[in-house]
């Protein structure tokens, strides 16, 4: 087989295996999905609730859409990040870390396969959440530019992968503490990216961090596409920062991963027992 085809097929192996594992844990999948859907609904209710609390009319339909885009896009990005950052921990948790790292494939093949799974899995979940919430609130999304929205998501995923891959490498360095750091990164992204509010409302020093979060640009672009139906051409300016972030973090992520792996191989951090 041609080397590239071989590596592609090998990376598909991770996609297939992980989906099979998800299927076997279907009970948990259903529960988590239920949780995500309920969270999304709860957030969307903030809009009509806000009208009551404030005691004055405002365009709560636009706020609902604003929140729904935020919550669904965050559900997606959070899941991509989670899943990518979990790639090493998952192998360790199942006990396959050594057999996976011993396989005669390039490390990027493993990273690419695990990331592809993360994106597909998260996308499927996000679509389900969106459909349920849209039906529940009879949302009018007739103006949305779905092609644009899809493009935003595709490019946005790349922007997040680099950071996810770096986080994935942490457990190679610190065993348990690595996973803890991942949670901190994830929570910080939620705070600074403007998931449920425009980042302008943040204090200045926090707003500054929103500039380096890829999620900020994904959310802005997605709202432009879904709320305002902005055309693909007009979305392009949003892609600039995302591509810049990707160009920096993705190669850096892969490099950091390689470095962490060498550290782990030198210091016996892959696995110790057995």
């Amino acid at each position, binding site marked *: *087989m041609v080397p590239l085809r*071989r590596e592609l*097929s*090998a990376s*598909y*192996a991770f996609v*297939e*295996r992980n989906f*099979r*594992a998800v299927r*076997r*844990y279907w009970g948990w999948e259903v529960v988590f999905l239920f949780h995500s859907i309920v969270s999304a609904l709860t957030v969307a209710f903030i809009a009509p609730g806000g009208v009551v609390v404030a005691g004055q009319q405002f365009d709560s339909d636009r706020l609902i859409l604003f929140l729904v885009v935020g919550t669904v896009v965050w559900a997606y990005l959070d899941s991509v990040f989670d899943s990518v950052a979990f790639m090493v921990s998952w192998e360790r948790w*199942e*006990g*396959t*870390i*050594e*057999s996976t*790292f*011993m*396989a*005669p*494939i*390039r490390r990027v093949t493993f990273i690419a396969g695990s990331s592809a799974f993360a994106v597909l899995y998260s996308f499927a979940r996000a679509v389900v959440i969106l459909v349920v919430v849209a039906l529940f609130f009879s949302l009018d999304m007739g103006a949305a530019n779905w092609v644009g929205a899809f493009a935003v998501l595709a490019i946005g995923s790349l922007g997040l992968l680099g950071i996810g891959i770096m986080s994935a490498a942490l457990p190679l*360095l*610190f*065993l*348990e*503490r*690595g996973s803890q750091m991942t949670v901190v990164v994830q929570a910080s992204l939620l705070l600074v990216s403007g998931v449920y509010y425009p980042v302008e409302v943040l204090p200045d020093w926090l707003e500054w961090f929103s500039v380096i979060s890829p999620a900020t640009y994904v959310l802005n672009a997605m709202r432009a596409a879904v709320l305002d139906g902005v055309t693909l051409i007009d979305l392009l300016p949003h892609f600039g920062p995302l591509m810049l972030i990707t160009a920096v973090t993705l190669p850096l992520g892969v490099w950091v991963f390689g470095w962490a792996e*060498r550290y782990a*191989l*030198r*210091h*016996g*951090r*892959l*696995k*110790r*027992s*057995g």
Partner: protein
Amino acid sequence: MQPAVSIDHLVKRFDPAGFGGAWRRALGRPLKDPIVALDAINVTVRRGEVYGIVGSNGSGKSTLARVVATLLLPDSGAVQVFGHDVVKEARTVRRFMNRVSVEASFFKKLSPLENLSFTARIYGLPAGEARERIFEILKRLGIEEKAIRRPMDQMSRGQQQKVAVARALLTSPVLLILDEPTTGLDPRSKREVQDFVREICDTHDATVILMTHDMDEAEQLCDRLAVIDKGRILVEDKPTALRREGETLEDAFIRLTGHAVEVHEPDKTAAGGGG
């Protein structure tokens, strides 16, 4: 003829402090002594032989297995597998080497078929052919058709371990490293795994390195044996040659190391703590 594996002055130490060690060094604090897991190991494994490495817990067997299997980088010394350096040509070595460890490392919720199909894909075996071979190997191991599709966590440890050996076999390794493949198994499963290993040795021209602390197993399966203790190889010979008149291999082990194989446990601490 080029040896299957040549290990030359291999040294591997573990820094017990991990990342903390780097801080201590930077601050000029005293460092804990590193654990010398492998202390200048020299071994040559010939093609086609079953080479045994016997030693008690903590003697360095798994560390040695991992260095040869490209899962640990040596501190110094060199290891070559069929002439390929395990550090510089790791991916080449990985292509024709496989390792079975004491824990059957699978996605336990997936079936043997799913786990082995994954391996087949990773190793670039054509899907149809792989499927046939998976069924063939697993059936020969006496694993029922039904069990092949059921989650692995419903199998006994002995069965799981057999699937682990089958997985290694699926990749057609020329070097097979078996790190305590029967430790912790009940006597019957143990025998079955041993029989399977013997069958592999008879029917495939693979070279096998077997780490074990089971003297009977070592004597029955190995063409040559090395006794390892505290990271050093004490002797190396045919099992029959290691024993003196009237001695069992166990006796010989005690004479050579000064302790029984099961007792000596220098390190009882659990897996390394977070950095």
